[in-house]
């Protein structure tokens, strides 16, 4: 009961994470249904209609009900602790946004009860999503649910922005805040600018479907392309909204387990801002297959390639941080290193897509599916797994089991790469995505079977990870306040932190306030 009315940022954060986990199971099951259906050529386990609902719900769930809420949860939980505050600036707004988000998720899933879950894909292109082509109530549920979720995301982003702007500990200027806080700050500002574009497109779509408007109906003077423009003006920044906080987590974890401060803090922070600006100028690369004119394509292709530069800078900063460090390979660090590799694969296929002719060849094939899963699973989810192993002792007061952790790590790495890497080849030999089955062409059957087996291994890995979390919560070794010998302020609070995080905030004079506290003979602010 105290959880239902909780305003404390730590409880709201954990509620966010738990709801995301719940929907992660739902989205994972949808993925497994699809992989089972695709295991062999000409299988007929489920109908094409159900298959369409599965990939639509899988995509929508994983983006809006898993990735965004879990990152918001980590932000709401960690940001006040990291900046030495006792609470977020707008605690009631923060709690209300969580419940709004949950209502949105439940609304989306209640569409199954009408027998017609949304089935127009997670980006619901018009005119497919219009009434004549999607007559069921599914798309209406989808649009209303996403309106609620968009409003909730904007609210929680405002909460985080105001918290970071006003609640920092004395002495903590913006040049000294931890990088996770920096990246959450930038991602939140991006939410404020990007999510209204989703809201506007949804309002227009709903007017078309439920009122008398014809915005996306070409026979009445509307333009289906408008949907694509508006949706991707939201959609591409969205990619960075769900990956920047993950970058932030990696920027906290790698230095601690390499026993070195982050290499090039100013570059990591400013390249984040560069990514934020560039991400608003690349949306057309989702639409290269639309005939838009050569100069148009050239500009957006160049911008899309440009965005690889600040992203690459971060990768090199992380590698340089590890270089020559005394690396401790805990499970958290292993996931962080795996993140570097997996995310780089996703980034490279992204640069391939920025090349217009390559995009024309590969658009709407499984190559796209492979790319987005390397970015969002290999990137965001691996960073999240690292983050759970790293911050679990702080949140629960107990350590996670390292042996189980290692097993789940190798199962997840093996399963994920087996499941998704072969999709690159399937895309290259021309298998289109979003089709419920395929004929028995050379290689199609074996490669798909490999992918399905990989997905099954991945499920075991994830389940093992969940077992580890549950068992460690009850039987784990006591963690103490600072089990990793870390440097940021959250480790100065108790584990788990009391309702009031800090009775006394340490003096902040550098980027590593706890290091200064532990090493009064050589504090950072003396050196730099």
């Amino acid at each position, binding site marked *: 009961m105290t959880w239902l009315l909780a305003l404390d940022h730590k409880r709201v954060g954990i509620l966010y994470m738990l709801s995301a986990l719940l929907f992660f199971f739902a989205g994972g099951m949808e993925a497994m249904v699809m992989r089972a259906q695709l295991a062999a050529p000409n299988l007929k386990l489920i109908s094409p209609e159900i298959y369409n609902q599965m990939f639509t719900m899988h995509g929508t769930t994983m983006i809006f009900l898993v990735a965004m809420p879990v990152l918001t949860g980590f932000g709401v939980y960690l940001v006040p602790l990291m900046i030495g505050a006792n609470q977020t600036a707008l605690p009631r707004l923060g709690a209300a946004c969580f419940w709004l988000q949950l209502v949105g998720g439940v609304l989306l899933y209640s569409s199954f009860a009408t027998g017609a879950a949304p089935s127009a894909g997670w980006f619901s292109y018009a005119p497919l999503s219009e009434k004549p082509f999607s007559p069921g109530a599914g798309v209406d549920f989808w649009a209303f649910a996403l309106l609620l979720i968009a409003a909730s995301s904007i609210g929680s982003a405002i909460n985080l922005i*105001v918290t970071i702007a006003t609640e920092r500990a004395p002495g903590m200027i913006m040049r000294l805040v931890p990088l996770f806080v920096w990246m959450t700050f930038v991602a939140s500002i991006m939410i404020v600018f990007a999510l209204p574009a989703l809201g506007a497109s949804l309002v227009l779509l709903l007017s078309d479907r439920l009122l008398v408007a014809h915005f996306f109906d070409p026979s009445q003077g509307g333009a289906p392309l408008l949907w694509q423009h508006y949706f991707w003006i939201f959609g591409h920044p969205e990619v960075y909204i769900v990956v920047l906080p993950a970058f932030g987590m990696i920027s906290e974890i790698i230095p601690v387990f390499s026993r070195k401060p982050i290499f090039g803090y100013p570059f990591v922070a400013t390249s984040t801002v560069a990514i934020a600006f560039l991400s608003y100028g690349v949306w057309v690369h989702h639409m290269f297959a639309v005939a838009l004119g050569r100069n148009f394509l050239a500009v957006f292709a160049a911008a899309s390639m440009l965005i690889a530069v600040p992203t690459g800078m971060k990768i090199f900063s992380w590698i340089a941080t590890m270089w020559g460090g005394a690396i401790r390979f805990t499970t958290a660090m292993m996931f962080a290193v795996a993140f570097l590799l997996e995310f780089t694969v996703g980034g490279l296929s992204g640069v391939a897509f920025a090349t217009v002719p390559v995009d024309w060849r590969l658009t709407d094939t499984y190559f796209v599916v492979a790319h987005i899963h390397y970015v969002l699973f290999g990137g965001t989810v691996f960073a999240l797994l690292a983050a759970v192993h790293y911050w679990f002792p702080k949140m629960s007061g107990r350590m996670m089991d390292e042996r189980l952790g290692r097993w789940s790590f190798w199962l997840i790495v093996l399963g994920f790469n087996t499941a998704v890497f072969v999709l690159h080849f399937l895309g290259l030999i021309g298998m289109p995505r979003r089709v419920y089955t395929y004929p028995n062409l050379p290689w199609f059957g074996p490669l798909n079977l490999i992918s399905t087996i990989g997905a099954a291994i991945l499920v075991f890995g994830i389940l093992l990870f969940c077992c580890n979390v549950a068992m460690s919560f009850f039987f784990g070794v006591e963690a103490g306040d600072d089990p990793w010998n870390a440097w940021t302020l959250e480790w100065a609070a108790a584990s788990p932190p009391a309702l009031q995080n800090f009775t006394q905030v340490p003096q902040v004079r550098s980027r590593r306030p706890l290091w200064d506290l532990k090493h009064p003979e050589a504090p950072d602010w003396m050196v730099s």
Partner: protein
Amino acid sequence: MAMFLISEAVFFFLLILAFAYFGSMPRRIAPVGWFFAALLLLSGLSMWRAAAGSRLWRCITIALGIAFLIYQAILIGNTFLIGNTFFILAGIHGLHILGGLIALAIGPASALRPTALYWYFFVLVWLAIVLVIYFRSAA
């Protein structure tokens, strides 16, 4: 509030752009439209006085807001009848005005400053809509 208004600005910018692009706007502004736009602008001025703490000006702002809302309701009914989708844009703006009126009527004194900011913003949004219609019909 400023952050919230930024996101609202993006939202209305894209909506107005879509409506203007497809010509889903009224073709001209009747004199009564100018009158009520001016009325709403006046309510922005009275809100400025109300934000300084005057109860009287607060009541005047609410009265002007209600008058504008009634005009907007009639406008929405008319455009709906002739099949023009402009009523959607006007309706979304009207809902925001209604939200502002509620905050103004029952909000605590501490909420007055952000409410005023909110009010100015939506006065400006309506002016933007009216001007877009005017320049489109003039062109």
